[in-house]
């Protein structure tokens, strides 16, 4: 038997390690928080890692979880040991196949990082709502509560499924377990061989569908037999718990870790018992053991095997003395008598009472931990307190304040369970490398000491400037605390600006060590602290250290990556490890992690480590508070009430404190909140020189965050302008005589530099100076804040006065999408911003889940906003897979409303006035003037209606606004459009209704971390195509063109912004379905996005990304519907590919393969252009179909009127 080693891994890796070694086929689809399991499995198979039978598992990425489940089913039927990994909506998509796999008694173990199902909102975090939604499928459900258990139960479940033939879902809490990094004992291959009975494997293979021994499965059965046949499996389900226990016993013999189907911990004569499962049970166990020591007669029953539910094992595990039971469910089933686990326990106690207890114990149920809500020892104690009440409440909640239905339990002020060792909290930015360094530190401590180690990481939802908070525990005792650190003896703040934003020292224990990265010396830093921080430091007598890590990083050439520097400081002053040993270990880790990135990278980081400690200083803490500067308010005092009461609390990282009453009942939120969140991310911001500016507005068009804006206005507006506010005469004819200004939003700019890169205006004497240059943020922010406030108050130009809605004209329209959380330099958001400028005041947007739904709709603040009339995009996200259909539904509803409004208007024409009704019904709304005129008519109509009585008038008042044309947009990424939502998208295109589909094509699943999609180009390395994708991307545009009835365009704003604007306008004007495929540069391409525009140009000039428009209206005019908008390729595809790491990685691994990709990509691009050129020569592809969908409505209206 080989020796077991200790490894420091997260739950996903712990599970994948077992799954990969005990399966032959793995079909997956990425979904948070389960994606890393599939990624590990794929990476290991690519590396040639074998399973315990000596073969390399096949890993296949499918188009959706439904596809993955179908593949799993098929592979199982064909006799291979098969698994998949998923969560949440993904598990729901698998349900039909789960029934089939279970119905056919097929051994299989699926691993689920349990995650919230989207209801009133999406949440990527953990609870049991997904697994509870499949408890009826016939799958066994085995729950683990820690990283070690997740590793162990993966093996136990695999063993039990083979023995019992009942398929299993092994689940563990998303994020809390899947993403917690912990030191565990690794199961060896021999352990796994010891757990897997080869006879069972052979039996599974013997049941395989094979023409050598043919059978039929999947028959259709009739009322005469289905019922009986369905009952035929019962014996297997009855035997299953026994098989699981056998597997657990075998596991105990092998490893010494003993598990039961229901594990009881606590007082042997407990009277109050909690029943629960998952990571919360770890916290409960830790708390219970402490309370029992204090003499409390309490206990905890941990449910391991939830399905099949073994009644006798359950009853047997409960102490006979129990009087009150609280069942905690990590899910919510609105309208039920109680949540699922409660109902099972109730039924179990009811069935067993007579024999077991003299008096039936009282059972109540409660909810906790939805969407990873913290479940702390205080919550556990609150539940026991409730059970001690004379009449414990049923249906309670714990961990929140419910001031509406008053179901929440009061929390006492019990502290976190005290422990020896280090409890450390680190505040950092995603971009500064804090989390990576901390993961690294855990591994170092895990490997180099006997200490237990745990790390958990909290991220905000921004893609640019994401705030991260790391929670690290190290100590001699086993760590069961599945909750954030409540009391820290080490606090590090890696970003000085956080001192003004967060109560960083709130959780510091008296005498704790505080490490601050500050751009000030040890003598100045004290005076720079806000008053609150000084007070805390003095009061808690903190030991205060500081370092200017950015200076050290700069000197070492590391840019903004301060990870290794801060890590070195942590080890130097935290006492977690002996300093020299720690530094040697850090260097070892650098060598290991970065060695493959090249010696230069290693050298730089070594230099940073070597110089860090010389710049680390202990700060003399003054006895008295000297600072007069207090932390500024989170949002401006001018922010609306809701933002003050709710949003600001969330922004201060205190959202947990908000009570139920603060929230809307149905997930409906006000728009325009991102403007109140001033993030000040940019280290440099653009500065405008009006003397050089040619007023082209290209800068505002490309800005991903709407942080640079242009206006034309009457110069008289400037009377009260701040002194530094810059303007110049407007140069072109259309608004001659007016004044022009270009203004940066200094606190919203992310410093991406795209505006500077696109600026064509250079100083002729000193071309290094452009009309926009970047300059340091600090000295400018106060001045520009005032300027921006003044700028915003200048009225926008009348939309109808803009003669040409081209690049320049479009940028005088107010963006109704601003300051989103998208990445610095994002290649998607400029398209969305333009959409809102052109059509936002009449747009409904259906947004597929993905990056655009996260930066578009993730709280605390959202970027869609309104104009001065209160109009703006109405936005919603349904799911990932259904977005085309979801938006299509918008169109049907809107058309129905409009039809109804016209019908009512005609009915009431006598009272309203025939002329007005005729104008309303026949209005030409093809331009801004037409729309404005119609809006005025609607105002007149409403005025008339207000004086009228009766139902029809009231109905028409409610529907009148639908007489103004609406623009329906279906927005999403390539994962949606090419893969999971393709079926729906294809169908919607075929339906021909007036919807506009915008595909933000990053050629990869960006939001979940760069997995290959069918949009991934030939030769690009992506997750699940690590060696480079060996087939070209799907030509989605050509497929849509094949219908002949849709407007289809391919655009790239960095290559041709004129064409981009034209396409948006044509798509909106087209009275049928429009599909715009928009090249979107992305961080997943692996280069500095400051060069995104140049790279877009390379994509177009090389032919990789042809620009075209296919307009069916041209067919009717006898013209070729397809127009190519880019010149014949002038550069080689290789030039494009060489610029991006996703392609270059392949060369680094296998130059010959790269060269082959280059050649094939060149051929493919040339062939594709030729196909388009030929198509562009075809003048008649048939008359457009499905365009005039409204033609019948008047006739219908007339008929109805009769």
């Amino acid at each position: 038997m080989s020796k077991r080693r200790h490894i420091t891994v997260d739950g996903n890796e712990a599970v994948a390690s077992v799954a990969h070694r005990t399966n032959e086929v793995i079909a997956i689809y990425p979904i948070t928080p389960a994606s890393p399991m599939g990624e590990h499995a794929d990476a290991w198979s690519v590396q040639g890692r074998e399973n315990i039978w000596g073969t390399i598992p096949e890993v296949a990425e499918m188009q959706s979880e439904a596809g993955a489940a179908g593949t799993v089913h098929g592979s199982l039927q064909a006799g291979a040991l098969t698994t998949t990994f998923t969560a949440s909506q993904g598990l729901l998509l698998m349900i039909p196949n789960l029934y089939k796999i279970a119905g056919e008694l097929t051994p299989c173990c699926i691993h689920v990082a349990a995650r919230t199902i989207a209801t009133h909102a999406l949440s990527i975090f953990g609870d049991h709502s997904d697994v509870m939604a499949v408890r009826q499928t016939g799958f066994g459900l085995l729950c683990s509560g820690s990283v070690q258990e997740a590793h162990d139960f993966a093996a136990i479940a695999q063993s039990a499924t083979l023995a019992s033939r009942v398929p299993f879902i092994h689940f563990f809490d998303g994020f809390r377990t899947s993403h917690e990094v912990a030191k565990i004992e690794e199961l060896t291959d021999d352990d796994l061989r010891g757990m897997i009975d080869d006879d069972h494997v052979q039996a599974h293979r013997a049941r395989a569908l094979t023409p050598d021994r043919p059978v039929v499965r999947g028959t259709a059965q009739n009322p005469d037999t289905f019922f009986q046949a369905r009952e035929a499996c019962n014996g297997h389900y009855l035997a299953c718990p026994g098989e699981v226990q056998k597997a657990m016993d075998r596991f105990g013999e092998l490893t010494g870790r003993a598990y039961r189907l229901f594990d009881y911990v606590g007082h042997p004569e407990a009277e109050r018992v909690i029943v629960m499962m998952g990571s919360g049970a770890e916290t409960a166990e830790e708390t219970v053991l402490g309370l029992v020591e204090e003499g409390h007669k309490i206990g905890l029953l941990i449910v391991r095997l939830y399905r099949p539910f073994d009644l006798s094992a359950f009853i047997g595990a409960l102490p006979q003395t129990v009087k009150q039971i609280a069942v905690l469910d990590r899910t919510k089933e609105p309208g039920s008598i109680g949540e699922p686990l409660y109902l099972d326990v109730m039924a179990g106690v009811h069935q067993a009472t007579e024999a077991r207890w003299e008096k039936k114990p009282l059972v109540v149920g409660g909810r906790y931990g939805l969407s990873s809500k913290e479940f702390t020892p205080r919550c556990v104690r609150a539940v026991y307190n409730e059970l001690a009440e004379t009449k414990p409440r049923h249906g309670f909640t714990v961990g929140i304040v419910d001031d509406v239905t008053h179901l929440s339990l009061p929390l006492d002020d019990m502290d976190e369970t005290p422990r020896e060792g280090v409890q450390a909290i680190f505040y950092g930015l995603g971009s500064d490398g804090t989390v990576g360094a901390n993961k690294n530190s855990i591994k170092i401590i895990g490997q180099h000491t006997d200490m237990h180690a745990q790390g958990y990481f909290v991220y905000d939802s921004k893609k640019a400037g994401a705030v991260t908070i790391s929670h690290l525990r190290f100590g001699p005792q086993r760590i069961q605390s599945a909750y954030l650190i409540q009391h820290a003896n080490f606090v590090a703040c890696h970003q000085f600006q956080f001192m003004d934003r967060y109560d960083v020292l709130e959780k510091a224990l008296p005498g704790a060590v505080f490490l601050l990265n500050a751009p000030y010396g040890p003598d100045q830093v004290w005076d720079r602290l806000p008053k609150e921080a000084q007070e805390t430091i003095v009061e808690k007598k903190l030991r205060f250290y500081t370092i200017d890590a950015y200076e050290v990083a700069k000197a070492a050439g590391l840019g903004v990556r301060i990870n290794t520097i801060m890590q070195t400081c942590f080890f130097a002053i935290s006492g977690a490890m002996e300093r020299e040993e720690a530094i040697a270990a850090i260097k070892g880790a650098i060598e290991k992690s970065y060695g493959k990135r090249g010696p230069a990278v290693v050298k730089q980081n070594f230099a940073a480590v070597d110089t860090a400690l010389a710049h680390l200083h202990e700060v003399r803490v003054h006895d008295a508070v000297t600072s007069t500067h207090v932390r500024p308010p989170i949002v401006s005092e001018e922010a609306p009430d809701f933002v003050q009461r709710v949003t600001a609390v969330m922004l201060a990282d205190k959202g947990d404190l908000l009570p139920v009453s603060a929230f809307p009942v149905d997930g409906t939120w006000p728009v325009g909140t991102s403007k109140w969140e001033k993030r000040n991310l940019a280290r440099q911001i653009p500065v405008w020189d009006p003397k050089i500016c040619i007023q082209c507005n290209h800068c505002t068009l490309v800005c991903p965050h709407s942080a640079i804006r242009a206006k034309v206005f009457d110069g008289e507006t400037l009377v009260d302008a701040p002194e530094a506010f810059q303007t110049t005469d407007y140069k072109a004819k259309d608004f001659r005589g007016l004044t022009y200004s270009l203004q940066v939003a200094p606190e919203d700019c992310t410093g991406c530099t795209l505006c500077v890169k696109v600026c064509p205006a250079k100083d002729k004497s000193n071309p290094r100076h452009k009309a926009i240059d970047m300059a340091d943020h600090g000295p400018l922010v106060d001045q520009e804040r005032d300027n921006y406030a003044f700028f915003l108050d200048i009225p926008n130009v009348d939309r109808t006065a803009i003669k040409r809605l081209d690049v320049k004209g479009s940028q005088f329209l107010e963006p109704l999408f601003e300051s989103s959380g998208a990445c610095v330099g994002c290649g998607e958001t400029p398209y969305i911003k333009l959409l809102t400028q052109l059509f936002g005041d009449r747009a409904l947007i259906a947004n597929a889940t993905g990056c655009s739904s996260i930066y578009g709709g993730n709280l605390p603040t959202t970027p869609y906003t309104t104009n001065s009339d209160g109009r703006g995009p109405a936005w919603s996200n349904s799911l990932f897979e259904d977005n085309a259909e979801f938006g299509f539904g918008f169109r049907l509803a809107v058309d129905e409303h409009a039809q109804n409004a016209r019908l009512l208007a005609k009915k009431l024409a006598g009272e309203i006035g025939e002329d007005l009704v005729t104008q309303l019904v026949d209005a030409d709304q093809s331009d801004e003037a037409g729309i404005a005129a119609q809006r005025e008519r609607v105002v007149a109509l409403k005025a008339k209606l207000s004086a009228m009585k009766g139902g029809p008038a009231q109905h028409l008042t409610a529907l009148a606004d639908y007489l103004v044309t609406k623009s329906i947009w279906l927005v999403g990424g390539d994962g949606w459009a090419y893969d999971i939502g393709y079926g729906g998208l294809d169908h919607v295109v075929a339906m021909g209704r007036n919807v506009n589909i915008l595909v933000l094509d990053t050629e990869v699943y960006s939001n979940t971390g760069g997995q290959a999609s069918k949009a991934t180009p030939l030769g690009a390395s992506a997750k699940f195509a690590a060696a480079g994708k060996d087939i070209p991307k799907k030509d989605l545009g050509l497929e849509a063109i094949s219908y002949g009835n849709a407007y289809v365009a391919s655009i790239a704003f960095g290559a041709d912004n004129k064409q981009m604007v034209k396409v948006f306008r044509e798509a909106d004007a087209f009275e049928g379905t429009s599909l715009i495929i928009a090249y979107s540069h992305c961080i997943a391409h692996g280069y500095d996005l400051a060069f995104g525009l140049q790279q877009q140009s390379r994509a177009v000039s090389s032919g990789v990304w042809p620009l075209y428009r296919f307009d069916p209206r041209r067919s009717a005019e006898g013209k070729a519907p397809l127009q190519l908008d880019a010149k014949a390729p002038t550069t080689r595809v290789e030039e494009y590919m060489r610029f991006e790491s996703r392609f270059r990685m392949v060369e680094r691994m296998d130059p010959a393969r790269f060269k082959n990709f280059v050649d094939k990509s060149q051929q493919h691009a040339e062939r594709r252009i030729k196909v388009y050129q030929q198509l562009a020569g075809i003048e008649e592809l048939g008359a457009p179909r499905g365009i005039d969908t409204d033609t019948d409505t008047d006739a219908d209206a007339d008929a109805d009127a009769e």
Partner: protein
Amino acid sequence: MDLTTTYMGIPLSNPLMPGAGPMADDLDTVKRLEDAGAPAIVMRSLFEEQLEEEQIASHRAIEGHSNASAEASSFLPAHHDLAFGPDSYLEQLRHIKEAVDVPVFGSLNGTSAGGWLEFAKLMEEAGAAGIELNVYQLSTDPADTAEKLEKRIAEMVTSVKKQVSIPVAVKLSPFFTSLVHFAQRLDDAGADALILFNRFYQPDINVEELEVEPRLQLSTPSELLLRLRWLAAVSGNFSGSLVASGGVHDSIGALKAVMSGAHVAQVVSALLMHGPGHLTEMRQGLERWLEEHEYESLRQAHGSMNLQRCPDPRAFTRANYIHVLGSWRPD
């Protein structure tokens, strides 16, 4: 006709050597060059700073977004077998070694002693017969004197020579105030050969866009004249081998280089323009010329027109300038 020559102690069948360039990237081309009579293969320059910059840029692009989001701890696959650094170059060197029988030279364009030492050693281990150190430093710092720059280069050569046992050639730019003196200094530092000269990448100016645009143009035969003059001057003042590089496009050009003192005439642009077969034509042309002029071997011509032996050395020096001006007439 005996065209043999000796380059840094290594006997070569002829002096017409494909110089450092992209041809060695492709194994098929390498084999065709050997078939065409190439006496050795020189790989393209490995740029130290380029390597480092690419490593760092790539690392930042990948690492800068890692562990920054709850949904994605990274955005590109974690490859375990990436070869950032000289690995792929060394791999190619090994492949060429296996594919051909002629010696293979590595070429290194570096700026720091650290990088040169490390990569030179790796090239030796990979089987390089010798190394070209391409000294390409554009000194734009007002505090950087000519003396400092020369000293730095000489020290780097010494350091590399201490590290490796294979011969080391130094490829220079033409812009040295006192090249002959410097050649002797490099001789003392241990340089086994001088390659005259590397060709500056001379960027152009786009007047429409007000941009400086990098431009790489192939050499023309007129560039040979500068080489001839300095070969002639250094020949006899440097104990190692001399190489003409830049402007050798045909057999007569190569012959002139040899007569000026070159042991080897490197050819790149002409081969890029005409293909590897051009090497055969050049060799045959050289043989034909030598035979027609009743030379016994190429060695007989070697250095015959250097400064020490040519009939009128003044023609290579300042007087030459006066002659040229004197020979110019307006049309």
